[in-house]
């Protein structure tokens, strides 16, 4: 094993320096993906840059402009924030589904995104909540919509030396809510076979005025499914509309067959999840009113 170096910078500037100085650096946040990949010999970085000591990466604030979430904040901290849970129930349930209680103590919002697994639970939920990603790098800062962040399995848009610092998630409109569901064979501890997030807004008469649908584990990256959203908007989210959205999600998926499920199965189940998630989001709005 080649020798490994560890650095724990306390500022973004220091981090940038560390990353700049090494061609084979990996960022360590919660470590729940990186350390497993190192154990299994998939990755052998020369430098590990621990970003948890950088204040910007550990921020969690809920204000007028929405949720500002540092990329290294662990899932357990997000889940423990009652107001965030009320505001974005689907997003928080997606974060909470990542791994066991032990994993929750470490796994970070940004790490789940940067690892770029097509099955990452939080990504569809971030998409339907219109998250934007704040990136700092040698060329300055930039912001990328979450749906453009990942480019393929294990691949993201970060360029050499760039760090995902935080995410901004706007406040949901009134009479809105979201939900995330995933399918796994057990009740816990599995990687999603399929996942679906839905965010909805309803008017006073119960008609859907806005919808965003995203699906996971059924394509090289998590996907927005505009056709599924279209199927919901303007309806009262009756069975016919839900089934139409489900069919749109299945049609938009391009899953593979592997040890976790067949393509055919994933395609079918992702539709079921979209339908059920939409029904949950609707029920959440109705419960609030």
């Amino acid at each position, binding site marked *: *094993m*080649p*020798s*490994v*170096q*560890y650095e*724990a910078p306390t500022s973004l500037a220091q981090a940038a320096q560390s990353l700049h100085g090494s061609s084979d650096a990996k960022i*360590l946040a*919660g*470590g*729940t993906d990186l*350390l*497993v990949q*190192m*154990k*299994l010999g998939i990755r052998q970085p020369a430098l*590990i840059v*621990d970003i*948890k000591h950088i204040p910007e990466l550990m921020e969690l604030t809920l204000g007028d402009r929405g949720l500002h979430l540092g990329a290294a904040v*662990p899932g*357990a901290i997000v889940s423990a924030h009652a107001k965030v849970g009320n505001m974005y129930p689907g997003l928080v349930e997606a974060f909470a589904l990542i*791994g*066991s*209680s*032990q*994993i*929750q*103590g*470490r796994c970070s919002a940004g790490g789940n995104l940067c690892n770029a697994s097509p099955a990452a639970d939080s990504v569809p939920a971030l998409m339907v909540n219109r998250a934007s990603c704040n990136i700092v790098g040698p060329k300055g800062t930039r912001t990328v919509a979450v749906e453009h962040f990942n480019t393929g399995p294990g691949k993201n848009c970060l360029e050499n030396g760039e760090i995902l610092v935080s995410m901004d998630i706007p406040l949901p409109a009134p009479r809105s809510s979201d939900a995330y569901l995933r399918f796994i064979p057990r*009740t*816990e*501890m599995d990687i999603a076979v399929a996942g679906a997030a839905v965010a909805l807004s309803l008017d006073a008469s119960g008609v859907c005025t806005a919808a965003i649908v995203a699906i996971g584990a059924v394509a090289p990256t998590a996907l927005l499914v505009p056709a599924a959203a279209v199927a919901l908007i303007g309806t009262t989210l009756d069975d016919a509309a839900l089934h139409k959205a489900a069919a749109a999600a299945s049609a938009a998926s391009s899953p593979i067959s592997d040890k976790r499920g067949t393509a055919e199965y994933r395609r079918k189940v992702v539709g079921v999840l979209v339908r059920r998630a939409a029904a949950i989001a609707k029920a959440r709005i109705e419960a609030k009113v």
Partner: protein
Amino acid sequence: MSTQKKTHVSTTINGEPCEFLCEPQQILSDVLRTNLNMTGTKEGCTTGDCGACSVILDGALVCSCLVLAVEAENRSIETIEGIAEDGKLHPIQQKLLEHAALQCGICTPGVVIASKVLLEKNPDPSEEQVRYWLAGNLCRCTGYDKIIRAVLDAGAVMRGEARS
């Protein structure tokens, strides 16, 4: 590799200051077990899937196999060795014994640690909450039944509702 420079780490383990030297890529469970000979923390997978290596890191439940030992600098770690106080078993430990909730016992330290964090967070969990909280602690011997009963019972003791 053998000549690789080791890193010095100052940390707190079970309330006592502790210093050690480790390789930068060494995981915390390995350093606890091999460098510090604190073998109460078990390793069942070293990929975060079994929970046998559970420790408490600055109050958070984590798998010590998914923490680099160097990350422990200036942090506080609680391990199974620190759970019984003044020679008296913690109610969770006592109830696991009374309910015969261990067979081989390899998962037990992790179960103790994880349950302690749960009951401190939520003193009166439902059966379902205990089951989901402990989903990351694999046990192959017991079928979980007696473990769940023991944790629920320990919660009652800690709330002062049952005899210890």
